[in-house]
């Protein structure tokens, strides 16, 4: 959705930080912080899907949950533009004021087995938000629940049944119905289809797409499966160790990736085509600890192109196109093209 950049964003996140303090010893002295998210900025436009991708521990889930104030932010701002009202900074609101906007901001969780209360009926689960926020009179809740369930492809009668009676895919539909109950404008899909089998995953992704088209929803989509990300996203932000290293449209990220980490990540994805032999950039080692990230560019310890200057300063964001930004020292054009990467070709080819 490239035209989206010309409209007002729905949410503007600036310099979001979430540090988790580490306490040690008998007096619980503060000895350091896990810098799970360390200064990320992005916009979410109306009706678009923005994906956050990166390896486990990169901070994608923490960033999204902090945005919804499920974690208290350490620093930064998140400007939300409500319909017909003045913009608010979600991070400066008290709990009561925040509650007012929670209706507009929703979430679908990864594990459909753990995110549904086993002691509540499907009707209670889906209708709970309606009851709490007093959106409709009590006697209408049943009808609303029924129509929500039908919207995600479940029969209205399922409202009297309990989560354990459903398969993983059906439970995820219940989770979606719950997320939709308050007619939100923005939904965080936190690995929402990751636990599902391929054929079921396709069903759920289609539902998400249909709902977006019907209701003009914005999604912040978090997933580690890059083929789903490629299919569902308008724009993609690539995260590494608490920061966004590259952000662009789906085409820009997949066709013209610039950051060495993005390139390595994309090259690692197995392709379901035995005649395709990927030129792979194999990264060595693991993601460093977010308690004590490397100096300068966080990626330099695993980067095949790291230079001396990469250890000195964190690279500034370079604006490549109107929609494409990247944070890498090599982008200033003083080094040879990174296309000449020491790629590891597949030995079986």
């Amino acid at each position, binding site marked *: 959705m490239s035209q989206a950049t010309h409209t007002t964003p729905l949410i503007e996140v600036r310099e979001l930080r979430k540090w988790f303090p580490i306490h040690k010893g008998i007096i619980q002295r503060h000895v350091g912080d896990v810098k799970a998210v360390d200064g990320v900025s992005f916009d979410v436009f109306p009706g678009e899907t923005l994906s956050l991708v990166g*390896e*486990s521990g990169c901070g994608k889930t923490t960033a999204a949950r902090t945005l919804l104030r499920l974690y208290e932010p350490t620093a930064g701002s998140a400007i939300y533009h409500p319909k017909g009202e003045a913009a608010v900074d979600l991070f400066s609101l008290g709990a009561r004021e925040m509650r007012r906007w929670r209706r507009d901001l929703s979430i679908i969780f990864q594990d459909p087995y753990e995110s549904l209360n086993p002691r509540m009926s499907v009707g209670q689960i889906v209708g709970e938000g309606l009851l709490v926020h007093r959106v409709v009179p009590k006697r209408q809740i049943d009808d609303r629940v029924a129509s929500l369930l039908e919207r995600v492809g479940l029969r209205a009668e399922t409202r009297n049944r309990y989560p354990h009676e459903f*398969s*993983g*895919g*059906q439970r995820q539909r219940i989770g979606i119905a719950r997320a939709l109950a308050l007619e939100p404008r923005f939904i965080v899909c936190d690995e929402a289809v990751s636990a599902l*089998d*391929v*054929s*079921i*995953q*396709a*069903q759920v*992704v*289609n539902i998400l*797409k249909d709902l977006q088209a019907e209701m003009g929803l914005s999604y912040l989509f978090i997933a*580690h499966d*890059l*083929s*789903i990300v*490629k*299919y*569902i996203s308008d724009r993609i932000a690539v995260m590494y160790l608490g920061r966004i290293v590259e952000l662009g449209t*789906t085409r820009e990220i997949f066709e013209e990736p610039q950051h060495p980490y993005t390139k*390595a*990540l994309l*090259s*690692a*994805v*197995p*392709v*379901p*085509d*035995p*005649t*395709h032999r990927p030129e*792979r950039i*194999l*990264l060595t*080692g*693991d993601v460093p600890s977010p308690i004590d990230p490397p100096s300068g560019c966080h990626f330099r310890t695993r980067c095949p192109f790291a230079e001396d200057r990469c250890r000195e300063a964190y690279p500034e964001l370079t604006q490549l196109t109107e929609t494409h930004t990247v944070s890498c020292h090599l982008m200033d054009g003083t080094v040879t093209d990174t296309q000449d990467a020491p790629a590891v070709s597949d*030995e*079986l080819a």
Partner: protein
Amino acid sequence: MSERNGGMKRGEVLLEVTDLRTHFRGEEGVAKAVDGVSFKLLSGETLGVVGESGCGKSVTAMSIMQLVPQPPGFIAGGSIRFAGRDLLSMSIDEFRRIRGNEIAMIFQEPMTALNPVYRVGEQIAEAVRLHQGLDREASRARAIEMLDLVKIPSPEKRVDDYPHQMSGGMRQRVMIAMAMSCGPSLLIADEPTTALDVTVQAQILDLIRGLQQETGMSVLLITHDLGVVAEVSDHVAVMYAGKVVEYAAVADLFAQPRHPYTIGLLKSLPDLAAPGERLHTIPGTVPSAFHFPSGCRFRTRCPLASAECAEREPPLDELPDVGGHSVACHHLKEAEAL
């Protein structure tokens, strides 16, 4: 590392599973988790066993390793031949000399498969002492050698680590080191990279492939990921509801899948969909192992299902036109148009 491939040349059948049936007794009756699985694994090759949750792929692996808890599980029929020997008719003592020695296995979640209270080196050394009769010192040296083989940096230090001190990728390397320590001729890998990030997955698959080329061992790879299958397999067995529905060389399977289930599965991958296009779906869900449909088990979700499919179970027959490509379907002609 010594060359161990069960005394076989590359291309000979190392493992042959015929009509394997592993059932479980439950409150609802008998769950036929594996119900007539047949395939061959050639020496030095990788066979990918692919299917969705509940199709019986892991139970197949557990049956080969004789790790199915009995009761409630039991082998209801079939045979498993490994390097010319019938594994199911062996005594448990005889089989123990094979398990962990000639056949080794790695699991999805290395944290649960490793013992958290023992150092990783000790866990590798234990297998070597048990199977190869090495003493304490020699087995520790062997453990360090194995950690080096799986490319763990400074193995002489990491040998004294506990599992929780390592990352997920490292732990999977330790599992592989342990599995490789006795020089197996068959490595069974049950979703070995499912819990790992793609960059680490690429490292681990690369490692397994390298070890295979070095030692000539065969690999039975169990996965739900068609990308991984395409990348590392020589042959593929597609499982659905306790049965192999299609078996072929990897190039044939992806170039021309013949079973409606395989076709549907490949079509529902987002890789192949154009942006904005709806994803192809297979309607419905996998039936419960307690109540499989009569006849062909895929018929309740199949676009080609006919009366014949409900009456008679289609046999897994080799195609007349493509050697080594077997499909269990009554409607092969119509499936070509899917």
